[in-house]
């Protein structure tokens, strides 16, 4: 009787083995909204990074003979008060805004991920210290905190070409505590699962527990929250830059392009100066969020919390 069970198990054909990642890809491709998001994001990236090579105005910069032109066949989005082509600047600004968003995300994910893992895995006093610091940072309102840091940095006369890295750093200082908490709570809940108790029963080394068992289960979470935090970082950067505290001219970012709306005349009469960068931010962030949302659903249909 026993042997018949064995042979039957052996001969039974299981469905084709599909790795978890392939399943995720399949689920993701079924989600129309996130595909639209992905497509649009790719478009924005191409627009910002490849676009300028097709623009005749990249190297021209300032053109005093051609200021404040409304949109025309030569200048699709008109020119600004220095005679620069707005479309070209929009592309160049896109590079900076996207880079800042991406850079801030990478830094937050690295800091938040590492600290969260340390907190959740080793617990004890280290955990206490890290979480108290995160508490303090989360108690302070994000925007005033960013403003102060930006003020310190602008007073220190950081050369403009390094400005964008500083902005990334600032955004990640504000961004990591949330991520660290998320990762920590995920690790704590994974530790409750029987398969983590099993690693203990098997007497596996900490490194194996961490890298083979915990990390692969954390990565999806990091991918999703990382993606979503790019959108948040782009929004914060634009706010800072709009108030002159983020990326500053001559470097263009979408946020500081909108600053032109501060001039009453430009605001009322020359919407081509400030509406396109606003729309660019809007469309980029919405595509990133759609993408992140789709990824979340694809990676773990049960993770739909918050």
């Amino acid at each position, binding site marked *: 009787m026993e042997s018949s069970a064995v042979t039957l198990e052996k001969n039974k054909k299981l469905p084709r083995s599909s790795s978890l990642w392939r399943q995720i890809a399949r689920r993701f491709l079924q989600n129309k*909204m996130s595909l639209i998001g992905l497509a649009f994001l790719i478009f924005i990236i191409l627009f910002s990074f490849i676009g300028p090579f097709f623009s005749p105005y990249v190297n021209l910069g300032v053109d005093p003979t051609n200021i404040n032109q409304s949109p025309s066949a030569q200048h699709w989005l008109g020119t600004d008060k220095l005679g620069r082509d707005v479309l070209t600047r929009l592309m160049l600004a896109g590079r900076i805004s996207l880079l800042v968003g991406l850079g801030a995300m990478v830094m937050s994910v690295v800091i938040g991920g590492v600290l969260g893992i340390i907190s959740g895995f080793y617990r004890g006093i280290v955990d206490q210290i890290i979480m*108290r*610091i995160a*508490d*303090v*940072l*989360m*108690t*302070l*309102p*994000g*925007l*005033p*905190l960013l*403003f*102060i*840091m930006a*003020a*310190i940095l602008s*007073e*220190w006369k950081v050369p403009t070409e390094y400005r964008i890295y500083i902005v990334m750093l600032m955004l990640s200082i504000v961004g990591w505590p949330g991520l660290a908490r998320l990762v920590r709570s995920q690790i704590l809940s994974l530790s409750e699962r029987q398969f983590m108790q099993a690693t203990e029963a098997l007497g596996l080394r900490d490194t194996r527990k961490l890298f083979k068992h915990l990390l692969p289960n954390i990565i999806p979470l990091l991918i999703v929250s990382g993606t979503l935090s790019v*959108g948040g970082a782009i*929004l914060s950067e*634009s*706010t800072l830059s*709009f*108030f002159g505290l983020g990326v500053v001219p001559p470097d263009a970012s979408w*946020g500081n392009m*909108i600053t032109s*709306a501060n001039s009453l005349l430009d*605001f*009322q009469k020359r*919407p081509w100066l*400030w*509406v396109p960068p*606003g729309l660019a*931010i*809007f*469309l*980029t*962030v*919405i595509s990133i*969020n*759609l993408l992140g*949302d789709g990824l979340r659903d694809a990676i773990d249909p049960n993770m*739909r*919390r*918050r």
Partner: protein
Amino acid sequence: MKGYVVKRLFYMIPTLFGASILIFFLYSLVPGNFIDADQNLTAERKAELYELHGYNEPVVIRYFIWLKNLLKGDLGYSLQFQLPVGEVIGNYIWSSFIVALASLILTWFIAILVGIVSAIRQYSIWDTFITIIVFAAMATPSFFLGLVIIKIFAVDLGWLPAGGMISTGSNFTGWEYVKDVAEHMILPVLVLTMLGIGGLTRYFRTNMLEVIKQDFMRTARAKGLKERVVIFKHGLRNALLPAITLFSFELPALFGGAIITEQIFNWPGIGAIYMQAFSVRDYPLLMGFTMFIAVLTVLSNLLADILYGIADPRVRVKK
């Protein structure tokens, strides 16, 4: 319950202490100060003022002086307004508060309604439509949204005032005054609401979707209750519970968000004052305001926990 509150109050101390250190040292790192920024002062007067405000002391000593005053409830003295910081905040907080409150009520009302409807009609056209709107709200930078609606509603259409709290030169009293302020409030409240609505709506929708799947919803239907009773009495109550904790993030975030909207709409509130103080480096005011929000955050966290305890019998009876 009482013991729990006391315990929570004790937990607040290290957090607030940490926050005060961070705030003070960040501000003391900012180069330049109110005295240096004033071009009209003579060197002697500057030295005098340095002495007066204790700028000659080492930073650590200055921190403890500040902390000592803070513990006495003294947030410092605003250099720009020549008034105690507490008083300045007191003067401006209420105009921020009415905008925040109006937007809070509006946000929750819309979010609950929309969240429920899209949860019980999951995957319908309506749900998709709402999802898109919510994503749009979350993706728009609030300052840009403010600019756009000023351009449309105030400049191009001329329906509503572009900024301020009352019409300039007006002298309304009574209902007229209320109506005037209300008109000025509409746009800022709208922007502030857009700022918070996305997250909250999605939160409600997920909560509701989770609750709908619970066994007790099936029990309620098996009892033959009306669908309306099942959704509102059994579903909504359970979906609202976890949302109570959101309150704690909401209020401080609204004051934070006010910095942008008040700046854009020229609304004479605490956020606008903050930006002003920022440009003239009125540190006592800046630190006082930041600390004020930190305390507000911690207190609303506590409040949310207590409210949660009262609302949820599982917690209430245990504590």
